[in-house]
């Protein structure tokens, strides 16, 4: 069991989200950085979908009760276990009474804490994710607070080397680029925007404003005007959709977005890049790079390949460890 000693205001239990109820008006929820969430789980031998703790903008502090395996992945935050510095992505053992300290984040916005077998919270409508607006799922449908205790579902100890296990996450930004590049496809109303607006959207950076949370990020940059103004009917929206309300500043819809919206959609960030938004913080710059379906498909395959490599490398290591014992 792990006890929360200190935690930022919006930490929640999340898995890969609640699929299949979009048609009934229930959004997906789920980890904002699904890549880091998966990495933390795989390192512990968990299912990729096991529930982890999503911690936005540390510091945070935990105490372990009983010897326990755990994993961390996501934004670099100078994690220390009883004073011993841990790598940014790490799985290992904590002893009874040890304190895990997550310091301030130097870059990125979220870090994921995984326990063996996943965090034990009830599965509701096929998922353990917290639906914050609807106040169910996760731990009592709410954000976590000091004094809360999280229990792992698994009780066996995974095979881990004494110094722990790590793996490399892809870089958040391209080398030498200050902005975070997001690959995106043009969406339904893209061509209704003026040529100048289209040009600006695909070439100039947009800044993440403080009005940004798990529902969506409001961005600030060159104003996007539509050439054709007409009343739009409400339509379905999904995470990654970039909508442009009347003011001309885009909003990226994210994990906790509503399922319907009435604003024109200029673009959709491709699924393999959604994790990058989850690691963007207010003040960061986002740049949208236009891709076509073939490139989106290639990106999908590449991200599948990355997970396959992770699994292969971890399995190889565990086999090796097993042969030593």
């Amino acid at each position: 069991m792990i006890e929360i000693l200190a935690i930022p205001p919006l930490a929640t239990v999340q898995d890969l989200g609640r699929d299949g109820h979009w048609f009934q008006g229930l959004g997906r929820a789920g980890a904002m950085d699904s890549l880091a969430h998966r990495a933390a789980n795989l390192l512990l031998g968990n299912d990729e979908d096991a529930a982890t703790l999503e911690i936005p903008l540390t510091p945070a502090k935990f105490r372990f009760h009983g010897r326990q395996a755990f994993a961390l992945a996501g934004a670099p935050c100078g994690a220390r276990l009883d004073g011993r510095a841990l790598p940014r992505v790490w799985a290992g053992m904590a002893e009874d009474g040890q304190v895990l300290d997550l310091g301030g984040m130097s870059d990125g916005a979220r870090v994921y804490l995984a326990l063996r077998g996943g965090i034990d919270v009830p599965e509701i409508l096929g998922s353990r994710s917290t639906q914050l607006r609807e106040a169910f799922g996760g731990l009592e449908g709410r954000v976590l607070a000091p004094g809360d205790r999280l229990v792992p579902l698994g009780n066996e100890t995974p095979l881990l080397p004494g110094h722990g296990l790590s793996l490399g996450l892809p870089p958040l930004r391209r080398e030498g680029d200050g902005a975070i590049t997001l690959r995106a496809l043009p969406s339904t109303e893209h061509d209704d925007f003026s040529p100048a607006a289209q040009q600006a959207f695909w070439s100039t950076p947009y800044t993440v404003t403080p009005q940004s949370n798990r529902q969506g990020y409001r961005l600030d940059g060159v104003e996007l005007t539509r050439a054709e103004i007409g009343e739009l009917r409400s339509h379905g929206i999904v995470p990654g959709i970039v909508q442009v309300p009347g003011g001309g500043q885009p909003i990226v819809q994210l994990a906790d977005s509503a399922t319907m919206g009435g604003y024109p959609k200029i673009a959709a960030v491709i699924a393999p890049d959604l994790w990058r938004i989850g690691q963007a913080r207010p003040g960061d710059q986002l740049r949208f790079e236009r891709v076509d379906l073939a490139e989106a498909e290639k990106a999908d395959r590449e991200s599948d390949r990355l997970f396959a490599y992770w699994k292969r490398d971890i399995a190889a290591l565990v086999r090796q460890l097993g042969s030593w014992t």
Partner: protein
Amino acid sequence: MTDPSSHWPRLDDLVLDGALVRFGDRVDDAANRAAVAYAEAVRAEALPGVEEVAIGPVSVLVRIDPLAPERAGTLARLRDLLAARDWPSAAPPPGRRLWTVPASFEGDDAPQLAEAAALAGCSVAEAIAALTAEPLRVLSLGFAPGQPYLGTLPEAWNLPRQAGLTPQVPAGAITVAVRQIVLFANPSPTGWRQVGRCAFRLYRPGGEDPFPLRPGDLVRFEPVSPAALAEAEARPDGGAVCEAAP
């Protein structure tokens, strides 16, 4: 983007989001009947690559994995299915239900009723009668879990949304615009005007039937006093009762 010579129904390939099938460009019961029946038929086909079938007031969005190899075949089947029947004359979905929901249209429960009645060109009493006389169809669910868009109200209720947003209406708020009522599942900001309130809970995450309303169901509001509504809050489903729809 809309072709003025187009006729209904029509299917648009949205590429990324799948296929949008529209049965009209304005909200009416026949187009909604068509949407509900077509969506049911698409679900029954279990076509490869289809991720979700969502019913809008007069449309069906079939989400298809844009990278699924069967995408083209699925799209062709959707077109064939659309042409195969006269969807607006389809029978109502089997097992649809009529919900009678106690609602207050007085005082704090109806902060914008007088304003909405004036826009609709009638008295407050006439407005309450217009909103409660006939059962309304659940046209679609969306925006929040189990949250219904109900219609279709008479033409006089083709009210625009407010220019500004109401910062927050409560869960259970009954709001009007564009010949529809939205019944709010959660406290929410909105551009729709609040004309009443009920205590019906639109989702029960732990329950057996987590989303009680389904597109095609009927909902009739039964006007009650604020005191009677307060009493209804303690009852299951906020006093709403359900029977097989005629």
